[in-house]
């Protein structure tokens, strides 16, 4: 069936074709779950960070966190706007790229707008198009989530930037020969991480979510200001739309593949017998 259709192509369509960044598997799975892709959509925002923000200081760098939040909100609003324009009910598989620079924070969100086949949405078509959901879940995770009675409502973000704490020269000298916890470091890092996650949860609540799934946490010093450390947390805010959680009752399978024993040539170097390695 397949190959013969490749030799004699179908006539071109007059419809407005869809565009999507979904893989073949994702497109099939999404269709099986009753959803169809519409268009590739994106949201981008560049927000300035005032001069002097990364200079040495103490505690949280709140202006940098504000810039991050503003950039994320603007980009998400644009993503939803593009989704509404093509009459989408939501965006799945959103790729999130955040770049924090010395003087600006850049956020890029790219995903595929989708809608239920036949336009039936439990939220109501108008409501769904007015406030489409955004989610960085893959089509597989989206399908599974929906099957369990939950729906994504939006992306939840939180960020916190702090100055790495300092010790006085005297304290540093005194502690040179001690195995000791640096409590000011511990506390600063701890509270910054908590702050990022708290902001993320607040953002989920604001979007109407009951929880956040697939949370990603990143952290590390800024490449342009090694004395400043950034923490970000983001995920998809979800809400229960069924009366109660639907148990998916997965089937337990036991693969009968035998483990393959391979020969490791390197084991000869240690003088030992050629030991096998299971894989």
């Amino acid at each position, binding site marked *: 069936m*397949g*190959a*013969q*259709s*490749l*030799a*004699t*192509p*179908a006539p*071109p*369509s*007059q*419809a*407005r*074709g*869809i*565009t*999507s*960044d*979904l893989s*073949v598997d994702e*497109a*099939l*799975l999404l*269709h*099986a*779950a009753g959803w169809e892709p519409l*268009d*590739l959509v*994106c*949201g*981008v*925002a*560049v*927000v*300035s960070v*005032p*001069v002097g923000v990364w200079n040495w200081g103490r505690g949280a760098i709140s*202006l940098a966190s*504000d810039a991050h939040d*503003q*950039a994320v909100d*603007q980009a998400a609003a*644009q993503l939803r706007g593009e989704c509404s324009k093509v009459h989408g009910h939501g965006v799945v598989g959103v790729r999130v790229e955040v770049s924090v620079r010395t*003087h*600006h*924070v*850049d956020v*890029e969100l*790219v995903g595929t707008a989708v809608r239920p086949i036949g336009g039936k949405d439990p939220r109501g078509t108008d409501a769904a198009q007015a406030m489409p959901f955004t989610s960085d879940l893959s089509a597989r995770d989206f*399908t*599974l989530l929906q*099957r369990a009675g939950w729906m994504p409502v939006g992306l939840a973000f939180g960020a916190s930037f702090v100055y790495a704490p300092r010790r006085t020269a005297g304290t540093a000298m005194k502690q040179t020969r001690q195995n000791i916890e640096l409590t000011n470091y511990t506390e600063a890092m701890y509270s910054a991480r908590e702050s990022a996650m708290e902001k993320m949860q607040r953002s989920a609540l604001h979007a109407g979510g009951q929880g956040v799934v697939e949370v990603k946490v990143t952290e590390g010093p800024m490449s342009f200001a090694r004395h400043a450390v950034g923490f970000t947390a983001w995920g998809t805010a979800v809400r229960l739309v069924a009366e109660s959680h639907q148990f*998916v009752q*997965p*089937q*337990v*399978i*036991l*693969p009968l593949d035998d483990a393959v024993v391979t020969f490791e040539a390197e084991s000869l170097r240690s003088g030992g017998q050629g030991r096998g390695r299971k894989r």
Partner: protein
Amino acid sequence: MTVGPDGSERSAGAPAQARGDLPEAAVRRLESTVFSSGLSVPDFAACLDLGLEPVALVQGFCVMQWGWYGQGSGYMRGLSPYTGGPQSAGSYSETYRCPHGFVSNEHRSWGQNLEQPWVEAAWAQGYGSAYQRMLEEATAHGAHGVIGVMDRVSSVADTGTTEFHFLGTAVTVDDGPPPAGGVPWSTYLAGQRLTKSIEAGFMPVAVVAALASVRVWAYCMTEYLMEGSMSWGGPTGPHLVEQVSKAHMAVRQLARKHVRQQLAGDELHGATIDVVARELSQGDEVIDCTLRGNRVRRFKDFDQVELPRPTVRLA
């Protein structure tokens, strides 16, 4: 006669009329009695299973030089780069005016986001030429299509030139009529992914790609914001850099528009977006966005797939 991958005998060589301007080495290779393919073994097996026979690894190249766009070039506008409007009819342009009035000759009293159609056209020329050359090789073998296409855009050493390179495996349909219109179809897919796509009712038409390019000439406020400066009544806190944000959105929308123009009602699957922003100075930027994917056409209604059953693996 040559022996195909399925063991059958078939005619060797390329029809003379289809050889076009292929290099001599390419003609000799295509006349060889062995087939070649860039497919992995699983993809190769899936290809045969689908009724497609690999005939040759085919490729196409094009090396382009990017011209001088600066002052005095044929692409520019004399001493001032400011156009006051789009570079050509229907292209994107937005103008920004300084809110401060006359300050000095150095003060950036205007700003503009400008689509660069000449860059887009040059890219399309390079990409299109390389693609056509790959198809020429495929046509020379009487192929119905090219699968597992890989394309690459890269610099040639440090010559300041850009090379467009296509590579794929030309295939024929077992017992199929000659390709419609004499032009083979093409796809980035191969193996199981191609099989699933066809079973789902989509036949490949072509790989499509487009580049959109937007030049940002920053005006004073953009310059201040992108450099973190708070002078001249600028905001003291974080602030959306409207000109740059709009340029980034525009370049992505333009890439989609260019690709959509190539779709002619078909669908684009497996799209990828790549954006390169080259910061120049004082807020000036050149933003290039490439969008590519598989153009596919529906040849039968979508068969509803049964919702897969979740499983837990004991291992």
